[in-house]
């Protein structure tokens, strides 16, 4: 258990370091842009002395690394700055929309796992059957469909032709169905393929043969010996997929005009609203690093071999 705590602490420190590096990189990128925040908001008629004064107040006359330090310490206090376009606090803007995004991505991941794990088990168990081949073909097919176009296609089928579901905005439960399907289907293919190959791998192991030799019946071997081991990578994948799913949902939310952070990010990019872009990217970076750490911890918790392998080695 001490191993475990040491490992978690090391992982957390590495995570903080990665967050600092990512944000420094982002901050550096934003610094490369022509002009600064003062020039963006002030008109050319503002006298130069006043601009210099404002620069001093905002700390923009200091070297870049000092500015980065200021920025980080403001973020620590929950101050992500103010939107150039709407004048609202960035944190307020994001927090209004984040629950909708999390609802969509959380729901999509849940649907993926509930559908994909049994299907993957079936496909592996009947390897090379017609069912197995069609499941594999289905996964390659879904990798080739741009997710945003899948959304458009579902809109046309269920919204335009069948007229049974709303195609944009948020107006209760019915609005959730199409975006949720669009986000979960491509990832579902991935989880399915992973479950299938993991189960196949475990099926080849000695302890499964032993279980059969002891006279256990097939279904209890499958559940107690195979699935339990095969699910380790699959559950780690859950955490690694979470940020990817949020990233993908940015585009899909825009397709469906979903009130999440996706359309906000898109609007802020097209209107050059840098503080909002910076804030959203920062929050997604934190979510990513945290879920990666959670994934590693879960892996180490479920599988002692991983703990042994990673002992002492971080990053």
């Amino acid at each position, binding site marked *: 258990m001490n191993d475990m705590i040491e490992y978690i602490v090391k992982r957390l420190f590495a995570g903080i370091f*990665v967050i600092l*590096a*990512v944000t420094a*990189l*982002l901050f550096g*990128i*934003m610094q*490369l*842009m022509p002009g600064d925040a003062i020039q963006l908001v002030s008109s050319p008629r503002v006298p130069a002395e006043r601009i210099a004064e404002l620069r001093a107040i905002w700390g923009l006359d200091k070297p870049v690394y000092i500015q980065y330090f200021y920025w980080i310490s403001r973020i620590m206090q929950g101050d992500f700055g103010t939107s150039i376009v709407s004048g609202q606090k960035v944190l307020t803007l994001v927090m209004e929309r984040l629950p909708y995004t999390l609802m969509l991505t959380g729901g999509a991941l849940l649907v993926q796992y509930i559908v994909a794990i049994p299907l993957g088990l079936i496909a592996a168990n009947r390897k090379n059957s017609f069912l197995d081949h069609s499941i594999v073909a289905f996964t*390659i*097919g879904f*990798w*080739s*469909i*741009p*997710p*945003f*176009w899948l959304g*458009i*296609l579902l*809109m*046309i089928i269920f*919204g*335009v*032709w069948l007229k049974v579901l709303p*195609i944009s905005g948020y107006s209760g439960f019915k609005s959730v169905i199409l975006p949720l399907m669009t986000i979960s289907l491509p990832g579902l293919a991935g989880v399915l393929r992973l479950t299938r190959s993991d189960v196949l791998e475990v099926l080849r192991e000695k302890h499964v043969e032993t279980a059969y030799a002891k006279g256990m019946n097939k279904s209890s071997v499958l559940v107690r010996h195979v699935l339990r081991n095969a699910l380790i990578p699959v559950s780690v994948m859950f955490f690694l997929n979470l*940020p*990817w799913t*949020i*990233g*993908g949902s*940015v*585009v899909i939310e*825009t*397709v469906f005009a979903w009130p999440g952070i996706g359309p906000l*990010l*898109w609007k802020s*990019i*097209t209107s*050059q609203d*840098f503080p909002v*872009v910076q804030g959203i*990217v920062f929050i*997604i*970076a934190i979510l*990513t*690093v945290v879920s*990666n750490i959670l994934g590693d911890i879960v892996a180490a918790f479920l599988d002692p071999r991983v703990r042994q392998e990673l002992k002492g080695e971080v*990053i």
Partner: protein
Amino acid sequence: MNKSNLFKEFIRNKTFMLGFVIFLSIILLAAFADNIAPFSYDEMNVQNKLLSPNEKYRFGTDQYGRDILSRVIHGSRIALKVGLIVVAIETVIGVSLGLVAGYYGGKLERMVLFFTDLTWSLPPIIMALAIVTMLGPSLNNVIIAIAVVSWAQFTRVVRVKTQAIKSLPYIEAARAFGENDLNIMARYILPNVLSSIIVLSTLALPTAILSTTSLGFLGLGSQPPDPDWGLILKEGIAFINQAPWISIFPGLAIVYTVLGFNLLGEGLRDIMDPRLKA
């Protein structure tokens, strides 16, 4: 494996052959777009706007009366061009970092690993969006953004292979003969990782095309009136009720292309480097 056996294996691999046929058809479509397409991609004809698919306009027309079929055909050029450039940049960055990290090891390797980890610490689409925000929306900037966020997989594979190769006796021999490091990397190590690089590049192509069409769909890539498939889909979504065909055909073109390259890549991998299947 001698050459004629390898050739036979290519022919026998159904995944590869299907992918190869699709790949050829797209190359031909892009090369002869001017001859194949019935109209030019930006010819407007307002009387014929939003026509459903018919004899003259097989895929229908858009809000300016432009022929969707011709736009989709010309779009194959943009998709191919972008895909190839992105993959070329990715390959050069990724492979050289991987070679250097694997060959020299030590601090240099740790630094390269840190950068690869960094590009993985954000979802690629978010990182690409941040870069496009900085550079401004245009097709060239999208190419840069996508290449910058997706080289890391090349580095990972090449680094591991280089490490394994550099301790082999023939590298020792080359060093004893006084070959310099650059020569050893380029002439003795690179040829041995080439098959992995070919497979990885082929598999990176569909991903690159998917990412550019996503950014094009958001209006951050090609600008009107370019027949970028993603951009056509963006323009079509406003007319999804009256003219759903605008939103269907460019999507089918993307799926056809990406599926073709995926099959080609999977086939190549099974033949040339089955161990890459992770």
